[in-house]
């Protein structure tokens, strides 16, 4: 990492104040530190029901040092659209309007809302920290839970369904910037948010955010688990833009080597760390690999589309 970037990160200060009520080792609060460092103080967070709506702590105190608007579960992207339109009307176009929510609120119940805001190309960020289940309510399965994962509503492991490819869905909406990120690579997340900030229009960032109590691993292993996700090819880091009717797609350097399956660590290395996959059946591994194939095939198609003139 270059000297100046680290200095920049230190100088950016902290907008997440210590003393949140997040679980020890929480991926989400770590991610939020970098999102806010990249965006700065002229930012409004619109937060639907999710872990962040609780870990910001209790009235009359809050652990976030930016304007934070807590809203109903499915409504965040629509509330943010209204905030954006009002601010623009009044001439405050350079204020960042950011939806910060979990996979439940942005990929399940809020999917239509997020899709609508994307279709209208609202000049907002929708940033999803994906802990792969409804964690705030005690670990229930969501559309983002991977096959085979144990949750309270899939006690024998998720048998029905895959994992919604939300970032690809967003890219297909024709929006100017979509990226995936991972808390093991905070500077990558920071730079992606900064790139999004420079773009006018709808921005979607999907952050892989491991959850120690939900995925059942020791608090200290959050970064390790996150890194393994990339190294096994399970989580793919990429950026996509729609520019004048053309998709421009780029694999991030951290994920580029894993385009070649032989370079990936075996998926079992990622799975075995996590209690939610303990005693996993062969069937689950097969389905996860199937899903990963679909994702990498999508990546390859996007790369091909990108190359076409």
């Amino acid at each position, binding site marked *: 990492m270059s000297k100046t970037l680290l200095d920049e990160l230190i100088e950016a200060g902290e907008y997440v104040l210590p003393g949140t009520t997040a679980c020890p080792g929480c991926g989400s609060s770590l991610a939020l530190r970098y999102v806010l460092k990249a965006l700065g103080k002229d930012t409004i967070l619109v937060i639907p029901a999710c872990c962040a709506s609780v870990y910001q702590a209790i009235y009359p105190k809050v652990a976030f040092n930016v304007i934070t*608007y*807590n809203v109903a579960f499915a*409504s965040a992207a629509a509330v943010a659209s*209204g905030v954006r*339109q009002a601010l623009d009307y009044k001439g405050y176009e350079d204020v960042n309007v950011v939806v910060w929510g979990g996979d439940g609120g942005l990929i399940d119940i809020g999917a239509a*809302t997020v899709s609508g805001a994307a279709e209208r190309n609202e000049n907002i960020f929708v940033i999803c920290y994906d802990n792969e289940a409804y964690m705030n309510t005690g670990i229930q399965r969501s559309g983002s839970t991977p096959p085979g994962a144990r949750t309270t509503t899939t006690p024998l492991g998720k048998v029905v369904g895959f994992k919604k490819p939300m970032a690809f869905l967003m890219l297909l909406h024709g929006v100017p910037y979509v990226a995936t990120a991972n808390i093991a690579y905070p500077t990558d997340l920071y730079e992606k948010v900064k790139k999004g900030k420079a773009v006018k229009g709808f921005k979607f960032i999907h952050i892989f955010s491991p959850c120690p109590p939900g995925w059942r691993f020791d608090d200290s292993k959050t970064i390790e688990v996150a890194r393994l996700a990339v190294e096994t090819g399970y989580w793919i880091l990429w950026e996509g833009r729609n520019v004048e009717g053309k998709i421009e797609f780029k694999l991030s350097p951290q994920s580029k080597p894993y385009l070649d399956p032989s370079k990936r660590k075996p998926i079992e290395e990622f799975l075995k760390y996590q209690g939610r996959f303990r005693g996993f059946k062969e069937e689950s591994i097969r389905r996860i690999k199937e899903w990963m194939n679909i994702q990498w095939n999508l990546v390859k198609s996007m790369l091909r589309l990108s190359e076409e003139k």
Partner: protein
Amino acid sequence: MRMEIRDVITGNDAAAWGARLSRVEVIAAYPITPQTTIVEKLSEWVDKGEFDARFIAVESEHSAMSAIIGASAAGARAFTATSSQGLLYMMEMVSWAAGARTPVVTAIVNRALGPPWNIWTDQTDALMARDAGWIQFWASNNQEVLDSIIQAYRVAEDKHVILPAMVMLGGFVLSHTAMPVVIHDQEKVDEYLPPYDPPHYVLNPKISKPFAYGNILFPWDYAKVRLAIQKAMENAVDVIKKAAKEFHEIFGIWHGDLIKEAYTDGAEIVIMGLGEVAEQAEATVEHLRQNGLKVGVVKVRVTRPFPKREIAKIADNVSHVIVIDRNISFGWGGILAGEVKATLHEYNVDTPVTAKIMGIGGDDILPEHIEKIVKELIK
């Protein structure tokens, strides 16, 4: 707009004019019969550059209410319109708007609820929202639709209130029926309705230091914060009266404030109803009075805050009250009748109340039906 226009327009066009004259800044729109022409009219004006506002064509009614909550919280005057299923779909956010203390105004074109599908008028939809913390106005003619939207902003944004408000108009009977309406001079409206200046909070880091709205709190704090809505509703009673009075002074038009009485002097029987039901009753009563029957009408113009004192006082001076409900609460009966009965009990008024449910799903309420009820009562 340099002077007023006298035209013959539908209730929906009147609602659109009400929003335009109120200089709304952000409009969220989603279609549903019979409200759709309100947002279509606004869209036309905005696209043609005749009206400077932001128009968000959202993907659902839930998002329509969400969007105007966001817009209002960021300091803009915001508006949307809906009916029936749309109102029920957004109901979570309707309740949210009151707790968020965003003084938005929504036009509700009353329509029957399904299944089965029915697009005609019925008041049950908006009455289902009566517990949400919104101020509720019921318009009985198209002039009142236009004027009530302007008054609604005036009341909603008053610093002693700061609550959202809805203005109801009957589906098809008002929304699609053309009536003579005075479209006021914009400058006169500006005199009556100043720009929205939020006294409480605004989502804008250029104006406000950081804060969080609505994070989790303990039950004792919740009670205090939520009961503030009740206090605001209590304040609203006087604010509504003042707003109506000043409207009359500037525009020379009187629709009543919380209620509007007609033919109540010396009345022995009084008929109460909401919106076009009261207007129909008034037409009937005019005829009955000519035949010597001592009947009067009370148009209940506002259902929240409920005009308890006003209704109790009138009921105390008559021998009988008839309430006509174009709605029903299953397992209970007519909603307005229920509230009137409870009011009379609270104020120790023992005047009997006859509750009639009529016109459900847009079925006609004709003067002869109302006349029949009165005549039966007299016997």
